[in-house]
């Protein structure tokens, strides 16, 4: 599905911490079936941007819309219920639960009925089946009963994605999904994200330029909270301002190689 209407639309977003401008008049759109990557040097305000879209931070000014509806003042959990899911840059899972229980909680959030006090949740087929579906999509179904605190770093990153997926969202905000991963793990994650593209709008923050250029339909470059360029990957690669401000040699190599 490739919609003309943007699913996520951000306009005039601004956020300051003390004197520091973290987000400086950002306009951004993400359409269904599209991967929109946001890149930029450390401290460019990428995570702050995701935090505002997901509701963890309140912007000073600006408007955030999701599926045509303004969500700027909605709390995080309501945005999640509308179908806007996020993964975290620093792995944020339930360390003391099993892998499948982690995902089942996310399913439960979307399924509702959390004021059930009596029936055991762990054997609830509604939760378990859908959790297993999400685990299968990220290739973690073999690890279902392992303790989430004990699996490898790469697997935890996959679990992050599975938890975001389990709520059945229409849009995903992925904050550096390949952070801290090796080459092989990164390649697997790129495949996972590619497979999610068809039925989700994805806003991707990523440091790994190979991953970005392999996945993104559109790239926005953020420097000191301000957008300095936005467009298809070829345009960004060729953009002088971007080269100077951020990409430097890395992109030249990429373009030549």
């Amino acid at each position: 599905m490739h919609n003309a209407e943007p699913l996520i639309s951000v306009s005039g977003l601004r956020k300051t911490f003390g004197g520091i401008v973290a987000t400086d008049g950002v306009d951004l759109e993400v359409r269904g079936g599209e991967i929109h990557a946001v890149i930029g040097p450390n401290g460019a305000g990428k995570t702050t941007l995701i935090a505002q879209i997901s509701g963890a931070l309140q912007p000073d000014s600006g408007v955030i819309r999701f599926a045509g509806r303004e969500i700027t003042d909605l709390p995080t959990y309501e945005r999640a219920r509308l179908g806007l899911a996020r993964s975290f840059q620093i792995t944020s899972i339930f360390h003391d639960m099993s892998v499948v229980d982690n995902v089942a909680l996310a399913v439960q959030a979307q399924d509702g009925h959390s004021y059930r006090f009596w029936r055991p949740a762990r054997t609830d087929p509604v939760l378990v089946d859908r959790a297993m579906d999400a685990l299968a999509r990220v290739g973690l179904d073999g690890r279902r009963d392992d303790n989430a605190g004990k699996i490898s770093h790469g697997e935890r990153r996959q679990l992050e994605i599975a938890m975001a997926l389990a709520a059945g969202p229409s849009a995903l905000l992925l904050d550096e999904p390949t952070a801290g991963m090796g080459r092989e793990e990164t390649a697997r994650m790129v495949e996972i994200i590619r497979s999610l593209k068809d039925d989700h709008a994805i806003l991707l923050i990523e440091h790994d330029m190979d991953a970005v250029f392999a996945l993104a339909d559109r790239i926005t470059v953020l420097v000191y909270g301000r957008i300095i360029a936005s467009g298809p990957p070829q345009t960004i690669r060729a953009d002088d301002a971007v080269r100077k401000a951020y990409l430097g040699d890395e992109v030249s190599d990429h373009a030549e190689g």
Partner: protein
Amino acid sequence: MPIRLPSLRNGVMFAGLAGFALMPVFTGVTGQPYILDITMRMMCLAIAAVSLNLILGFGGMISFGHAAFIGIGAYAVGIPAYYGEYSGFLQIPLAVGVSALFALITGAICLRTRGVYFIMITLAFGQMVFFTFVSIEEYGGDDGLVIDTKSEFAGLIDIEEPLALYYLILVCLVAALYLVKRIVASRFGRVIQGSKSNDDRMQAIGFNTFRYRLTCYVIAGALCGLAGALLGNFTGFISPDMIDWTRSGELIFMVVLGGAGSLFGPVLGTVVFLVLEELLSALTIYWQIIFGPVLILVVLFGRGGIDGLLSRLANAQR
């Protein structure tokens, strides 16, 4: 299906509950009603500890004002009795209801905060209840109130009879344990535990955790109100001293000593706490000189409490 032996944990739990059930037989034979009294007190406080464990152990809400609910429950028996209203069918629902209401109001404020603020605010609200009862002269103020007649249950059960009261308390304890066991395993319980583990993530996947935590706080408060009503009936005397913040501290210690976040741990903690208190205070009136440092040592070195010890033992056997 092969016969499965109960795990060490479950074994200890069943042995403990069987011990409670058989205690009257033992004291009947040996003629030590004094021990029966201690056990009744133990079971009342165990219910309170089990209720605290629901929010503290499973929900990560470190309430330092839990004894307030014991007091509210006890006064909900004592105040009607003061006016000559002895019906348990009024007193018990009143104890549970007022405790739940107090939990709802204070919880709605406490749970807006986190961490150390939560600890201190629950502590302050507990003191508020303490000072409120101290200042009401009508109900004895500082000196407390004697309950001359225990709750009456329209002839169904006569708790003036010590054994009847004993088994009523035991049934309530077992029911409380079963309730917590079911809640913890339910969808609701998963939300509570998820919120303890990682509240930000819970919000990000779509839970309004505040409401669930508040509900949990109300359940725990109501359950502790029941414990207070039973304790008031057992002691026949209620005073603000039951609500003093040191009582709340003792309840937390019982939970941590037994093992926060384990089902039966708080009961074990209560038993060990009260036995230790009895033994040490028989030894010297300065027993807290020993008891205080024991508490500190448990905090420093006793990870997971008695329940943690049991699971380490069970693992070592394997």
